[in-house]
Every structure is written in structure tokens, then in C-alpha cells.
């Protein structure tokens, strides 16, 4: 029988201080028993001599020192796992919330995972086709990559993520694929949107959902991505499945972290976020990848809304420092009615070069990618000059570039929400647009590919 402590001395924000404890260890899980018999859960954040600082997941409202009893369970936060978690929905604490029967676990895993030795990793290099031109051609996603979407409030990041989840596939067949979806502090409508999406496309049967809504306790948010990734690791590395993990919204996660940090009176770093935000985020994002000798993989697509659309805000900034690129959404394109409003120039997939080319996509891919990018950049720059100095300041060639960039936004960036373009279709659109420029301008593409793919004049 484990000891129950009545010695809660102090409750501040999401934290409570328990005194005169013994044999309690760091990160241990505690049960907090309310006078009415209700149970909440907490985790030991810090131990100082005989005092334990406990973070209460469900929040501390309604808890009074002296009235609650605390029981330490002698183990860290764990998730019960079995094949049956697929198709089910859990709360941030790993409890089933879809009304179905509980999971009978085959095993329990610590939700914090263990860092993977780089030696044991397999380098990600397998092309994932998302059916979205701006991603597939320009910012190619590969299996095992962590590629976040940097968005802003009101932008269609959820629709984009759902579309990717629906369409993503590898050009090989016969592999098991599943989505692990973690919602942190999003609205009921947003969660419902994903749910409907998954249901409509039958994806729900191959999805595991961890849901913490905006009105759920913020502290529970800290556990959500860890739960989700623990489930993902089990499915990927033990059952050999290919997992796409969608984490949304990381900004809410970071806010929760800040809240705890403030309650602990820690010295804040930039904009009040704790100094360990980078380390904490990396413990989430680094849990993507592939492992030698295991057939499964974990690909991560975290979504975050940039406060005030500011890319230098600590949340996107630190995320960018950890992930392997970023897909940026543009408010301007969105306002112009272009979906998905991917801001091509500052977006980057750092692993793109490993996943494209002959045998993976097509031999001209790299050239087309660089050429489209360069031409679009040039067109936008020319457009800016035209805004300041007037069209007359442009040379005929510049004008061609401007036209190109406008058409590029409409036809290449823009596509339907239900439109699933395969890579060949995307490259074909790319070539069609490049056909608006004289062939001599295509300096980034090898001549042999120009000969083969450059649209002839008759068209």
C-alpha cells in the first residue's frame, strides 16, 4: 500500500508543494485524491530535500491544501499500448474518451521516450507525395522528416494539414500507414473539422487521436505531444507502420509551458518563455525519424500559429532551429484567395535534395525546382520595382517574369482542396509555366531536360 500524504502546503497556479515526503523521485506520477473521491493526476517536477513540487495535469482549481491527499505511484508518466489504439481517441492524459471500451495494453511505455543514438538512425530519403505542388516540387517532404507549418491565426493550416494527411503516400505500395493526431488547446470546431475530415475519408480507422481542447486544462497539454509520440513510436518501430504525426497547435503547447515556468518563478528568457524552451521542444521534434533495422518511420508535421505573424517570435524561431525546414503560409496569398497559400520563398525543406531525382521522382526535378524558385523570386522582385517606379521602369524581359510570377501563384501554388496532383502532374504544370519564359532564360535546368520538356511553341 502506498503512502498518502496530507501535507500539501501550498498551491500556486498548476503547482502544489507537498511536504515531508520520502522516497519520491523526479518525474514520478502522483494521484491527487479529492475529498469527494475524485482523482486528479500530477507529476513531480522538482524535489528539494523532503519537499516535492507537483504539477497537476487537470489544473488545481477547487483544490485546497489540507483537504487533498497525494499518493506517489512510483513510476513516471506512461501510456498503455497495443495494436488496438489505432482508430481510438484519447485525452491528454492517455485516457480513452470516445466512449468505447478501455484499451487492454500489451505494454506500458514512458511517454518521454529515449533519445535515439545518431548511429542507430537511418537517414530520411524516401519521397512522400502529398499531392500539393508547392510541397512536392519545391519543398519535398521525405519519410522521417520533421517539417512544420508556420501559420497565423485565421489561415487555412488545418485544411492543409488535413489534405496532406488524406493524400500523403509513398510511391511504393503495400505499406501500412497511419496518422497520429495530437490536438493541443484547439477549439472544438477545429477538432471537429479534423474529426469529420478523417471520418469522411475513412482515415479515422487508421488514426490515433489525442485531444486536448481549448477549455481542457492547459497543463494537460504538456503531456499531449509526448503521449502522441509514444503511440507513434510503438506503431512505427514495433509494428512497422509509417506514421504521420500532426501536432497542432504548438503555440498553445508553449504557452502552457510558459505558464508552469511562471508559476515556478523561473528566470524567464525571451518574451517570458523559459530558457529551456529549445531543449523542451527538441525533445518533441527529435522524436521523428527512421531507425536502422526497423521498417516503420515517423514523419512529423507540427503546426504553429505565429503570434502577430512574426517569424522571429521564440516559438517559430526555436522550432525552425530544430526542424528540418518549414512551410510558411502567407496572409497575402490567402487574402488573394489562393489556396494553399504557401509562401514559397521563405519555405524550405532541408531534406528535399535527398528525396528527389531519377528513380525517386524524375530526373529533371532538381532543375525545375531551382528554376521555378529563381524565376518566381525574380518576378516578385520586378513587381516590387514596378510598384515603386512604375511598369515603364521594367524591361520586356522583366515584364515576362512578372507575368510568370502571377500565373505561378494562380496555377502552381493555387490548387483545389480536393485536388491531389501527382508529382508528374506538378512538374508538368511547372514546365508549362516555364514555357512563358524564353528557353535561354532557363539557366538552372540542364539543356537535355529543356530539349525534352520545354513546351514547344505550337502549344
Amino acid at each position, binding site marked *: 500500500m502506498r503512502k498518502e500524504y496530507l501535507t500539501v502546503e501550498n498551491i500556486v497556479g498548476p503547482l502544489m508543494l507537498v511536504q515531508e515526503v520520502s522516497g519520491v523521485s523526479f518525474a514520478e506520477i502522483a494521484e491527487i485524491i479529492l475529498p469527494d473521491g475524485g482523482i486528479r493526476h500530477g507529476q513531480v517536477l522538482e524535489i528539494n530535500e523532503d519537499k516535492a513540487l507537483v504539477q497537476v495535469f487537470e489544473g488545481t482549481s477547487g483544490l485546497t491544501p489540507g483537504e487533498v491527499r497525494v499518493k506517489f505511484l512510483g513510476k513516471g508518466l506512461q501510456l498503455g499500448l497495443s495494436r488496438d489504439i489505432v482508430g481510438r481517441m484519447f485525452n491528454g492524459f492517455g485516457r480513452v474518451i470516445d466512449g468505447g471500451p478501455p484499451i487492454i495494453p500489451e505494454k506500458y511505455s514512458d511517454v518521454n521516450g529515449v533519445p535515439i543514438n545518431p*548511429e542507430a*538512425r537511418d*537517414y530520411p530519403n524516401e519521397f512522400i507525395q502529398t499531392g500539393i505542388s508547392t510541397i512536392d516540387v519545391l519543398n519535398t517532404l521525405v519519410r522521417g522528416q520533421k517539417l512544420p507549418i508556420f501559420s497565423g491565426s485565421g489561415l487555412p493550416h488545418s485544411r492543409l494539414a488535413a489534405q496532406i494527411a488524406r493524400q500523403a503516400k509513398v510511391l511504393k505500395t503495400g505499406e501500412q500507414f497511419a496518422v497520429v493526431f495530437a490536438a493541443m488547446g484547439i477549439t472544438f470546431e477545429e477538432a471537429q473539422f479534423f474529426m469529420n475530415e478523417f471520418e469522411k475519408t475513412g482515415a479515422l480507422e487508421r488514426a490515433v487521436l489525442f485531444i486536448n481542447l481549448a477549455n481542457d486544462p492547459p497543463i494537460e497539454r504538456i503531456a499531449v505531444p509526448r503521449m502522441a509520440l509514444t503511440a507513434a513510436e510503438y506503431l512505427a518501430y514495433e509494428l512497422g507502420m509509417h506514421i504521420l504525426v500532426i501536432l497542432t497547435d504548438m503555440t498553445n503547447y508553449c504557452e502552457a509551458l510558459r505558464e508552469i515556468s511562471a508559476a515556478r518563478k523561473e528566470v524567464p528568457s525571451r518574451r517570458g518563455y523559459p530558457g529551456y524552451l529549445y531543449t523542451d521542444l527538441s525533445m518533441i521534434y527529435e*522524436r521523428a525519424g527512421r531507425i536502422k533495422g526497423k521498417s516503420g518511420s515517423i514523419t512529423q508535421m507540427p503546426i504553429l500559429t505565429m503570434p502577430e505573424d512574426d517569424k522571429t*517570435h521564440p516559438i517559430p524561431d526555436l522550432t525552425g532551429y530544430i526542424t528540418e525546414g518549414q512551410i510558411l503560409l502567407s496572409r497575402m496569398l490567402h487574402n488573394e484567395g489562393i489556396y494553399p497559400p504557401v509562401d514559397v520563398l521563405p519555405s524550405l525543406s532541408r*531534406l528535399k535534395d535527398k528525396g528527389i531525382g531519377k528513380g525517386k521522382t524524375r530526373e529533371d526535378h532538381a532543375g525545375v525546382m531551382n528554376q521555378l524558385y529563381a524565376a518566381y523570386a525574380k518576378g516578385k522582385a520586378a513587381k516590387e520595382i514596378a510598384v515603386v517606379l512604375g511598369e515603364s*521602369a521594367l524591361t520586356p524581359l522583366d515584364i515576362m517574369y512578372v507575368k510568370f510570377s502571377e500565373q505561378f501563384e494562380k496555377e502552381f501554388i493555387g490548387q483545389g482542396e480536393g485536388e491531389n496532383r501527382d508529382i508528374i502532374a506538378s512538374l508538368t504544370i511547372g514546365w508549362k509555366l516555364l514555357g512563358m519564359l524564353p528557353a535561354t532564360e532557363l539557366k538552372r535546368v540542364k539543356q537535355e531536360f529543356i530539349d525534352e520538356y520545354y513546351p514547344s511553341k505550337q502549344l
Partner: protein
Amino acid sequence: MSIAVVQETLTIEHRVLVPPGISGTVTAVSPEGEYRVEDTIAVVSGEQGETRLSLFHRWPVRKGRPYRSKALPNSLLITGQRVIDTLFPIAKGGSVAVPGGFGTGKTILQHALAKWCDAQVIIFIGCGERGNEMTDVLTEFPRIVDPRTGRPLMERTIMIANTSNMPVAAREASIYTGITMAEYYRDMGYHVAVMADSTSRWAEALRELSGRMEELPADEGFPSYLPTRLAEFYERAGMVETLGGREGSVSVIGSVSPPGGDFSEPVTQHSRRFVRGLWVLDRQLANARHYPAVSWLESYSEYVEDLGQWWESKGFPEWKSLRGEIMGLLQQENRLQQVVKLVGPDVLPDSQRIVLETCALFKNAFLQQDSFSPVDMFCPLEKQVKMLKLILLFHERGRRAIQKGATLVAVRGLTICRELMRMRQTVKNDEIEKLDRMAAELDRSMNELEARYERR
């Protein structure tokens, strides 16, 4: 002093050192043969009593290893990266910081240096960065052949992997572990290069640990001793005469990841004080996919002055003046660009627009270097000098042609000019003489162009 040698890899001969501070008479020596690392192979008696020496010894990592004397670094650490060797070189034994926001190319640059620089031993410290990047090195380096030794690069490389999700205490220590290993090989008489990616993560580890010990925070929460620690780290670089009388060096290249890409933060600011070179990675250049995104306006190298003689001794006496010339043009271009921004390029006369043209050529054909292209990723010095000369020749001849009445459009339209634009991709390292032919062709085309205008 070394007392024995072991062939560590086919590239590296491990020279077993007498630990610093031990001296006296050798009273026993084991014969040549096979030993375990901890076996005694010699005994030294001296003031400190009897010391048994084995194939290894221990050293506290936070303390710099002693040497006989430090020398001024005055030979180039060849990196094969044009923007570095030609514009902002680092000397063997030098130290450079590479600040840049996320995705600006710090790691790719560090990897390029680890692959191609002419140090004999490479220590790569992955300090609080991505696991996949370490995996990349681990899978790639055994496959890449070192052009100098013909052996896999891995044989000269030591990696210290402390990824971002590993314990911060180990992250804090990793920098010291790396630099101590570097000094150890230096003491064997090797030229060693240390890449630390990223020193900011190390500084943050320092901050985290300091916070936990409830020390008083200074600037942005960093402990007040941050500058001291940074200075101590960079001070351990240098060209030395070792205690055993050999020449060895440790060069240090540390990347810096400023929050929000803002260089006014403490780690960037303090690092600047302790290094002699700065390769500033520019967000705008990176966004324009101009790689390496080293800013030619903000970067500097204090080694330029000391390296002129070295270049001369290698048969390139003209390096310094060529460098001066192109740097001058870049400055001029910068001023002209401001004008262009205000009133458009049309206003400038062709005699000035040729400066923009030359600089555009220089940026595209010379400064940009593709780390993933087999032809372009490493550029020998001879090729660098010849490419630069070609670009300056283009400028000289282009200017003259314009003086004689040719238009910029006509100059730009020459076939050879388009070839110059692509030369970094088309001229392989074993056919550098092609560049001479291109120079001849450039002269010929320009002569022809001038003649056309003179006839008018």
C-alpha cells in the same frame, strides 16, 4: 614527447604522448608488440616518483593542454570554399565564428569544411543540434574519399554527438571534450580543425545549469561568466610548438545561432570579441538561395594581412591584389545598388552598369558554391585564382569595350559571358586549363566586339 606510435587508422598515426608534467629518466621500456591501451609500456622516474606510462592518459577537459610556445597563425587552412579561401580566409590555428539564423547554412558550411579543409584531424562537435545531421555525417563520411590521402574521410574524423534532446549537462561538457581531443592530436604534431555546431546551444546549456544552481543571471539570463567561458574556449585555438618540439595547430570554427536571427544578442556579441574572423550568414542571401550565404559586406577576416606571404609562397603572389580589387568592386556595387533602388537601373550609364554586371557574375559564378554538386563542392586554390582573374578580366575588357562604344547588352550577349556564368559547374577540378582557354576566348570575343565598334 611521444614514446610510441600506433597506427590508429590508415590515415592517422597515433603518437603516444608522455603526459604533460611528467619528466625524468626512462627506466623500463616494453618491446614493440601488441598491447592493450591500459598496459604499461614504459616507466619514467623523476621528481614526481615513478610513473607508469600506457598508451593513453587522462586530462581534465576544462583545462587547456600546455605547449612550449604559441606562434602567429600564418598559413592558410585550405577549405576549398571560394568565399572563404579567397575573401575571408582562416589560418591554421585561427578561430572564426559563423553566426546565422536558422536555415542560413551553418551546418552545411561546417560539414563542407569538415570534408574538404586540409587539416589532418577533424573534430566535429554536434552540440545540441539535430540527430539526423549526425547520422548524415556518419553515413556520408565513410563513403567520401579524402582527396589528399585517398582514404575515407571518416578515418580522420572524430564526432562528438550530443543532440538537442540529450542531457544538457553533457552538452555543456561536449565543447570541452572536443577541444581537448583537438589539443591532444595537436600535441602529436597534427593540424587539427574543430567545428562546433552550435556554440549557442552550449551557452544555453550553461544558462540552464546556472539557473538550476540559482546563480544571479546577467544578460538575457546567461550567467555573468559567459564571456569568460567563451574566451577560454576560443583561446585554446592556435598554432603552437608542442612540448615535444613539434608544430601543431588547432583551428576553431564555431557556429552561433542567434535567437530571432538578431546579432545583438550576448553569444554573438561576445564571440566576436574573441575570434579573428567572422563569416556572417545573411538571411536575405539564404532566402535567395545564394549559398553559402556568407555576407561579403559584413564578414571579415583578420588573417588576410598575415596570409599574403603564404599565397605568394604557393605561387599566387597576385592573390592579395586580386582580392582587394574585387572587394573594391563589391563596395562600389553596394553604393550603386542604393541608387538603383531609388531610381531604377536605367539611369546608370553603361560604364557603371558594368560594375553591377561584374559583381552579379562574381556572385553567381564565384561566391555561390553548391555543396551538393560533385564538380562544385570543392574548389582548389588554383581554380579559385583563375576564376577570379577571369571575372576581373571580364570587367577590364567589358569596361574598355563600353568605352569604345559597345553597349552593355552587346557585352552581355557574348557567348563566352554565358559560359563564364556557368564555369563553376562546367570546369572540373582536373581540367583547370579550360579556364585559360576561356580567358583567351574572352579576349578574342572582346577584341572582335571592339573592332566592330571601331569600324563604325
